[in-house]
């Protein structure tokens, strides 16, 4: 009797040992996650959807390159001998404020004397106003006068350049120099993946808003296809009864959220829809990086 019990016990311990230590086939289960730190793709596909990939002529070389740029090479810690987790090297970005590009453009047009365009108060102006109130309060308590330094604004730079008939290239240079020195703050959607200010979007948007102000039609939605848009990818997700197209876009060097919005929706106004659809990847609209794979949402009645 006792022998049987002991034998059973030993057998049970052996089985437990097998379960815990897994001497066979343990190697298969090593981390299948994202070791390179590239964004893990999350498709919208729900559990029981069948996914078919089609018409996605990706530029494999550029994706690989993007993935390389994205991650620093693996380094070994000399003390522990462990491989250090790759860190993302963040590019220096121009300082931003939460002024909306449309407000700023509106004020540029108003200042240039466009009929029917009234200046609005931008967030930067509100912030300036509240700061001067705070300074007045401190002044009343200390008796020392304090001055609020005058600063260049992107608005003023653009207005002066447009009045002087400066070329687009020169405007790009002036704005980027000022942004690099930290003397102006720019709207977040103008910041590109390589840390510059996208003056092309800035100027395009001025033209678009000027046309709208003159009673022109709203910009049409361009037909973006994987053939004419590098980095774009289309997937067809088969749901219960219908096939739904899901669009993805891999951020290219020099892209800003404003530019991506223009590419897919014709104007910068829909950047928020893109930003909201990619909250998991983007902490703020100016934090886009080369190689990030963004979901491009469908927008009805644009």
């Amino acid at each position: 009797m006792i022998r049987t019990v002991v034998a059973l016990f030993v057998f049970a311990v052996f089985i437990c040992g097998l379960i815990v230590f897994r001497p066979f086939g343990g190697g298969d289960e090593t981390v299948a996650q994202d070791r390179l730190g590239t964004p893990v793709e999350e498709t919208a596909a729900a559990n029981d959807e069948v996914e078919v990939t089609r018409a996605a002529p990706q530029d494999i070389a550029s994706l690989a390159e993007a993935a390389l740029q994205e991650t620093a090479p693996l380094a070994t810690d000399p003390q522990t001998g462990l491989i250090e987790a790759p860190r993302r090297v963040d590019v220096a970005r121009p300082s931003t404020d939460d002024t909306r590009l449309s407000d700023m453009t509106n004020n540029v047009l108003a200042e240039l004397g466009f009929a029917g365009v009234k200046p609005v108060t931008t967030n930067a102006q509100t912030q300036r106003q509240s700061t001067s109130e705070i300074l007045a309060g401190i002044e009343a308590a200390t008796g020392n006068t304090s001055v609020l330094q005058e600063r260049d604004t992107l608005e003023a730079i653009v207005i002066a350049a447009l009045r002087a008939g400066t070329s687009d290239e020169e405007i790009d240079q002036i704005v980027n120099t000022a942004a690099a020195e930290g003397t102006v703050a720019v709207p977040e959607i103008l910041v590109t993946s390589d840390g510059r200010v996208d003056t092309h979007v800035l100027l395009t948007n001025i033209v678009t808003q000027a046309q709208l102000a003159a009673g022109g039609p709203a910009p049409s939605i361009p037909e973006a296809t994987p053939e004419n848009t590098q980095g774009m990818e289309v997937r067809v997700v088969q749901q219960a009864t219908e096939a739904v197209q899901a669009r993805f876009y891999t951020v290219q060097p020099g892209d800003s959220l404003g530019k991506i919005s223009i590419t897919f929706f014709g104007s910068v106004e829909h950047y928020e829809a893109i930003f909201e659809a990619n909250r998991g990847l983007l902490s703020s609209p100016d934090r886009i990086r080369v190689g990030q794979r963004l979901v491009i949402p469908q927008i009805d009645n644009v």
Partner: protein
Amino acid sequence: MKTLARHAITACLVALASSASAQDVRITTFKTESTFTLNGQTFTIQREQDQSATLQGDFARTARACPPDCIQPIRVAEGVMTIGELEVMRYLESTVSDGTGLLLDTRGPQDFATGAIPGAVNVPAATLHEENRFRDDILRALGATSRGDGTLDYSTAMNLAVYSGGVWSGDAAQAIKNLLAAGYPPEKLFYYRGGMQAWVHVGLTVQTSANSG
């Protein structure tokens, strides 16, 4: 005639009672009021003498959504001293009166306008965040001076006692963290954790006006 006499006696009793109760609610046993001057203006802090008074309005609330309004620790940051009501009054009488310090109310301007500690200056916590492009202007107004290279020198900066709505408000803690992140020396910072709610809870004088002065 009899009623008149009774009225007179009642009036006398009331007068006696009120003169006696003026001494009843003191700040401490030997202190009935705290007086200080700020930029030539004199302020006096006393306690509410009506012993049946209770908290009213917003400060009577005991539940606020957390986040954002979460309970704060006693020590808010390394090297920053936490103070109570008596220390706040001593700070106003000495440091603020000599012009070497300020009391900052870090709530929003609307809250500040409904009533603040006498002599406090409104500097909302968010305006001290590095994202505010005008932060350095505020820091210079608080006595920091620009070094040539764009950084600030805090050797002449004022002492700051910082408070917000109450124990449940992270505004003062955030303001202190923002100041430290900007390089403000921790030994110049003081944290009045109880904040406005603790101040009114013990019936201390509240000043209602837009910025002091």
